[in-house]
């Protein structure tokens, strides 16, 4: 009898970890950084917390898009280039005199959707794994950036643009954070309450069974890459407004952050498993590591090393805990 109770506990523990493991990692990290930050009084202040959220917002946004690509056992390596290209597009449109909202909508949202659709269509048409396709389109989009921008940053936007994204609600919370949370809320709803979301999970779990159950794989592949592209476009809008310029080299290597956010958030590379809120926390972990390393006064050269090591540790811890299941 005793052994039954044991098993029950073990099982519920692994279930709890699946749900809250990412949160546990975040808390561990907060404690770690709080202990080792050079100026302890500064780390856990409201302004620094808001600052962390602000810095994390773009990572959360692209992480959410990446989450969908990984959910169908794929990947999107082009999010960084889509981010940069949509920023440039929106910037060019604004500077050409288009109203700010329209320019952002066309450049970032529509632009991101089109680039995502290109990824999805190529995957469907060629049957090649998304890794290869998006590796290729990543270069193509980066090339387009150079052609369109002539390798120069686009800046001098109408002031409303910066004002909107950097507007602080209650004088405290920047819009970027609200955008990230709102997006997460919408995508959480999509994944848990809509048939669209359910079918994506089914596809990710067993592609063949999905096809034989009436789920059109190609259609959902296209949708998923459009979602990823739109998320990258929204991140492009946020980053462009934050920095006040659309840089051709913006977000180089951001696909790593996006993938890391999704994976730290417990999304399975085999597809079909993961939760939106855990990806949000995954994005926060990335932002927190960035911020914490500054707080601990780690030399910027070493920051990358530590960042890589921390990502590996976070994911290994998760794998280790989940393996204790049997």
């Amino acid at each position, binding site marked *: 009898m005793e052994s039954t109770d044991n098993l029950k506990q073990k099982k519920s523990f692994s279930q709890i970890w699946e749900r809250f493991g990412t949160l546990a990692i975040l808390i561990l990290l907060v404690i770690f950084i709080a202990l080792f930050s050079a100026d302890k009084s500064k780390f856990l202040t409201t302004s620094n917390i808001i600052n962390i959220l602000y810095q994390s917002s773009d990572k959360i946004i692209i992480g959410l898009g990446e989450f969908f690509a990984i959910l169908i056992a794929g990947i999107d390596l082009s999010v960084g280039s889509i981010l940069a290209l949509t920023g440039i597009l929106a910037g060019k449109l604004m500077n050409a005199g288009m109203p700010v909202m329209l320019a952002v909508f066309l450049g970032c949202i529509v632009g991101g959707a089109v680039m995502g659709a290109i990824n999805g269509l190529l995957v469907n048409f060629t049957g090649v794994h998304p890794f290869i396709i998006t590796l290729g389109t990543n270069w193509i989009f980066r090339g387009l950036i150079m052609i369109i921008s002539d390798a120069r940053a686009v800046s001098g936007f109408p002031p409303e643009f910066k004002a909107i994204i950097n507007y602080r609600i209650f004088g405290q919370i920047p819009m970027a954070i609200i955008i990230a949370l709102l997006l997460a809320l919408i995508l959480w709803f999509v994944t848990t309450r809509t*048939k669209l979301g359910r079918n994506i999970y089914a596809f990710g779990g067993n592609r063949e069974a999905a096809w034989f159950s*009436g789920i059109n794989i190609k259609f959902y592949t296209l949708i998923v890459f459009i979602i990823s592209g739109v998320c990258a476009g929204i991140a492009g809008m946020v980053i462009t407004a934050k920095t006040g310029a659309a840089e051709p080299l913006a977000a180089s290597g951001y696909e790593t952050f996006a993938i890391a956010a999704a994976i730290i958030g417990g999304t399975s590379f085999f597809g079909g498993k993961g939760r939106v809120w855990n990806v949000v926390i995954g994005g926060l972990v990335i932002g927190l590591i960035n911020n914490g390393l500054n707080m601990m006064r780690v030399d910027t050269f070493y920051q990358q090393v530590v960042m890589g090591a921390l990502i590996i540790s976070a994911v290994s811890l998760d794998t280790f805990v989940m393996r204790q299941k049997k």
Partner: protein
Amino acid sequence: MTKLIEVQHITKEFPGVTALDDISFDLNEGEVHVLVGENGAGKSTLMKILSGVYTPTGGNIIIDGNSYSHLNPTLSQELGISIIYQELSVINELSIAENLFIGRLPTKQVVGVPVVDWKFINGKAAEMLKMVGLKKNPSTVVEELSISEKQLVEIAKALVMETRILIMDEPTSSLTPEEIQRLFKIIRNLRSKGVGIIYISHKLDEINQIGDRVTVLKDGGLVGSKKLSEVQSKEEIVVMMVGRELKDKYFSTRQSSEDREDEIIFEARNISTPDQKVKDVSFKLHKHEILGFAGLMGAGRTELMNAIFGAGKKESGSIYLNGEEVQINDTYDAVKKGLALLTENRRETGFFHNFEIFKNVSAVENLKHSKLKGATGLINTNSEKQMAEQQKEALAIKCTSIFQNITELSGGNQQKVIIGKWLCANAEVILFDEPTRGIDVGSKSEIYKIMRQLVDDGKGVIMVSSELPELLSVCDRILVFRKGEISARLTSAEATEEKIILAAT
């Protein structure tokens, strides 16, 4: 007689269920020990304890005088135990030869360096394939094989290594009678060499042909063991399994012929597939009719079903539902138009291993009432749960709750969940490809009853099966397939096993 293995008082607990409760079991040298029981009785769990996959909660395993509290896969293999799992474990991306030697590729020394000995592997693989009767090149990628061919590969894989104890968990579930007889020859040969074999099956007719002793499990408990020489009839085993007598014929087939022009619910005209596995096939299905498809492995029945359902490519041909031609370009169209296809391979094309029971059950119904390839609309969790509870009840699915993950169910219960999924789809015409694979005797007749109920309610049912007795007792009309063509059309009155076999070969 030497005991190869003895299991004493084994108990295995899973959260919420006792899968095995104080089971003792043994296997002698040169013996075929048959293990039977209803779906979820604990047969596979006991075998997974012997192959070292599961750790028992209590009890001992005695092999060669040594007592073990549990085994692990490596140890189990070293002790000479080989297993054919119920759910095929072949790897689709690898070749047949690679699958046979996976994890133990033999090497030879080339200038002092060990390299994989492909010549030996391919030679040995060809030999094994000949033995199990699979006419394929060892370098064929497993992905291209049908499920019965995969099952033969799985069997060959267990035979590559010299083993003393061979466990076969439903090895014949996907095999046709001819292949089963070949397997029995192999088993008899091994038995004469002193190998002990544990044989699990739901096909009770096989038991008398091959078994020496039978042990019955029920709900994780041991019902009893008997020498098969002392068993009078199949019914005696059924009573031990089910706890009551089962009447074999719950159903009566109807007379029906193709000439009947009334109430044609479904018609396929001149269907061909690009790979020529189906050649210009035409047939009609009447309302209130169960139509059976018979044929040998590779006769093109599965390919025909897939082509009709929009899951496989169709080169030519047209499909009519209730007299009107319908365009089916993908499986979504098929579902929307009122078709259902229960596939023959539950693990690969049937269930979603990341979903609970209730999400598996509602997967198709969700699509049915939405637009844009099923992407519109919200999930109604209450109706999903209701549907799942209903199917759990109707099909007697053994589970702790509908929120249990489907991978935690026994094979037969997984099959029932998928049947439930298609019943919820509320289709007009239902294509069942080997619906009773892995299903126990009692539940089988429940499923036949459900099929009869469906056609009584005005639907059409097509059943593909490699079990002739099943086809003969359930179907109103039988079409026999040979090499992608229909070679005979028999009414239930005309049809006999002999006629079907004659037309199929």
